[in-house]
């Protein structure tokens, strides 16, 4: 398997990838642990309140009488899922828009890029808030993922478009066109394979963005606070004044996990990105 070989090579020779692997394995293990959690994350006052980290409760317990470690296993899982939902949706839009704009060109390209640029200048937070009004409390983390997905594609669509533009110049496209192949066919069969590595790299970046956005919204109390996520962990800690109450572990745990998750994804992103093509690195940053 090439994938396995690539992973093995990366593990062996890229220290960033090694670190990313360790971090993400930790996260993955936590996510899997949620399946065997002894506590239901929606139940409060099941353990003693406000106990600092110990062997029994590795991350301590919260003022809601919950074991923070086991609660975080759900939080990580949900945050990660949110990232996946956002990434999946925005990837689909980005690929479609990018391929069509890049391949078709002309007025269609102009229209698509005008929409694209409008999305870039759209102030996300006020709009999310307006949508929050609109959805009236139906803002669970899945809907949030979808909304973020709708806003998370323009950078990457541009990237894919520029990639397609350069691919278009290459000989095989011309040959295909002269031999009468349908443009759509060319797009799917000839361009997509070249575009996919970029898609993969931007996926990770997009997940980072979406999970970060969730944290922002949750801290402000603008998301569905009854679902455990990294953001809602901080939300509930704030609601209980954890900082001045001295329950520092309640803030430290989500912070630590956020750092591990984010660094893991980020290192994976940069490592893979370089592996794919060092020259494209630059254009990928910021997606």
């Amino acid at each position, binding site marked *: 398997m090439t994938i396995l070989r690539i992973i093995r090579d990366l593990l062996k020779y890229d220290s960033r990838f090694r670190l990313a692997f360790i971090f993400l394995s930790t996260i993955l293990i936590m996510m899997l642990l949620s399946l065997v959690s002894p506590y239901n994350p929606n139940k409060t006052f099941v353990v003693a309140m*406000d106990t600092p980290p110990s062997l029994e409760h590795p991350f301590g317990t919260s003022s809601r009488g919950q074991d923070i470690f086991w609660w975080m296993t759900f939080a990580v899982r949900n945050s990660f899922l949110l990232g996946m939902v956002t990434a999946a949706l925005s990837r689909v839009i980005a690929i479609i828009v990018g391929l069509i704009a890049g391949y078709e060109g002309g007025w269609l390209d102009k229209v698509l890029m005008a929409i694209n640029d409008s999305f870039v200048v759209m102030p996300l937070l006020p709009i999310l808030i307006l949508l929050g009004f609109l959805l009236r409390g139906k803002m669970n983390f899945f809907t949030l993922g979808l909304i973020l997905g709708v806003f998370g594609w323009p950078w990457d669509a541009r990237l894919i478009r520029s990639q397609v533009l350069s691919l278009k110049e290459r000989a095989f496209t011309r040959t295909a066109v002269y031999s009468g192949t349908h443009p759509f066919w060319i797009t799917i069969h000839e361009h997509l394979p070249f575009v996919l590595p970029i898609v993969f790299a931007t996926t990770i970046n997009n997940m980072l963005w979406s999970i970060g956005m969730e944290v922002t919204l949750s801290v402000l109390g603008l998301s569905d606070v009854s679902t455990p996520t990294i953001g809602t962990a901080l939300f509930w800690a704030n609601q209980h004044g954890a900082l001045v109450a001295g329950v520092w572990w309640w803030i430290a745990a989500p912070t630590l996990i956020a750092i591990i998750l984010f660094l893991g994804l980020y290192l994976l992103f940069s490592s893979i990105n370089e592996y794919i093509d060092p020259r494209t690195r630059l254009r990928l940053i910021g997606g």
Partner: protein
Amino acid sequence: MSNYPKTRREFLKQAAMFVAGATLASCAPATTTQAPPQGEATQPAAAQPSGAGDEEIQPGVLRRECLILEDPTGTATPADDFNRWRPGTRTYSTGLQQLALDALWYIDPDAGVNGVWDNAVAAEKPIYNEDFTTMTVKLRQGLYWSDGVEFTAEDLYYTVDVQMKNDGWSYTGQFRGNIESMEMPDKYTVVFHLKAPNSRFHSFFTVRWGACFMMPKHVFEKQEDPLAYKFNPPVSLGAYTLKDFDPNGNWFLWQRRDDWQRTSLGLLGEPKVKYAMYIAPGPSDKRVIAQMEHKLDVIHDITPEGRITLAQKSPSSIGWFKSFPWAHPDPTLPAVIYNNEKPGLDKREVRWALTLAIDIVRVAMASYKGAATISAIHVPPTGMYPKYYFEPLEDWLKNFTIKVGGQDYKPFDPDACNRIAEEARKTLGDLVPTDPAEIRKSLGAGWWKYDLKAAEQLMLDAGMKRGSDGKWKLPDGSDWKVPMMSMNQSNPTMNRCASMVAECWSEFGVDTMLDARDNPWDIMSLGEYSANLAWTIETWGGHPDLFFFLSSWHSKFYQPSGTRASGSNSMRWKNPELDRIIESIQKLDFDDPKGIELGQEFIKLAAQEMPITPLMAYNVFTVCDTTYFTGYPTAEDPYTDPVPNWANTKYMFIKIKPKA
């Protein structure tokens, strides 16, 4: 009580406190600090910018002469708009309604300085005619606006007239609905002729938190558009005038008037606080830190955890109660409000089942860390209400029965408060009182039983069915969802409370979820909810009259779900017996002792019907710092409400003294 493992809790609690202490101790500035004049305030964690309060807050304004209070509204924007009579102005709690404005009468939510009732700018109580169709107001003589103009009947007349004749004022609707005409027989008398009998017309002019304050006619009448006028600088009728304010709305500095004797407050005594500043100190944690650094004398409200931190780390901080639960119980009643028109919830048995499915101990722990003052009946357990309603009804409550499975069932649990105290003691130890009388006073008298078996039977009595998934279904077998709406960021304790109620219910098999909103009031008013943790019951606190909230519960104001409720009947409760009680109260004089009897009848009816489940007082963790000032109101000396956004807090200023 298997939900509460008891292992090593004491040890762990102490460890937690140690860490908290270490964290806070290290936050003290490195500068050496002088011990404050009073030994009791010497505290390692409590750093003092300067021991004596000699530093200047503004040129000429010494810290020890300036009481600093929290404005719970936060940053007041726009800061320069003091037109309190227009809805939307955000500056009311900046000291404006506490220090600068004045009203005809005040009813204290607590015992009051000279009793609950105070004739402020009025010379005597409202004088009604026999059938309550006219109300005569006699004004005090010798009161002056801060610009030297005398306060007269002209001002009162103008205040009502301008709001009645023009659109958009706060009381436009109320005055138009009630007043037929007005007359001014002399310089200090105004007579209101009412459209219909109304024995409570004076309540528009009686401060309970706020009211229709007096407008200076000589200022407003010069304005082309009085509604748009910003009233900056405000001309005050109170004992203080605005000295300076932040154009960004973060602080407002008030100065005692030189002619404070010519104000209604001055008649009660000398305001000893020379300057007062209302500030926007930021979220709960920042307020706690600010008080530990003695930069904030009166905190309006903080999280229970923040209060506990202050109790442990800042000995100069005092609350309403000397120790646990510290908080001042607002004369409002947070409750689980059911939409009485939703399928399932339209049945009394279901509402009762949901009530018995709530474990009040866990709710008190989750919301207030136990520092809640619970109430089984439909009036808040605060102010003078225990005396008016709880004590007379206690025996009735103990024998009160409802039908469960055809049998009489006594739902009252007089012991609930003791169990809360016991539970709280596990984390707070000695801070929690042990004396039963003390517990009753601070934590409330008792609540309804936590009895899932009875609840189960009640559900079955109502025809509800358990589905194969264990969830309750409607009699026709369809899904029954009861989302629990709550306030979000704006009110952490209520949100925490709602979250716990929802948890109790889902254990009972109710398909529910927490639906936290930033602004639930609108949805509540429209009735587009099933259950909601908020309040529809607000009382005077000091005065037993329940008409304050009951008036709009009459079926003639009833609006079906989907249309905006008129007044506070957002649960859509209609009951002929209730109408009778309301009508009877309305026909009585405000102070008629029969009102208390009718109030008790209301309470009995509400207990029977359970249109909403009463939970507890809205406990406000107002904390006052005694480093520079003393004489704050407390449960021992309950002369007024310390919660600084109440206009009633003006009385604090004649009792609070600088320490030096």
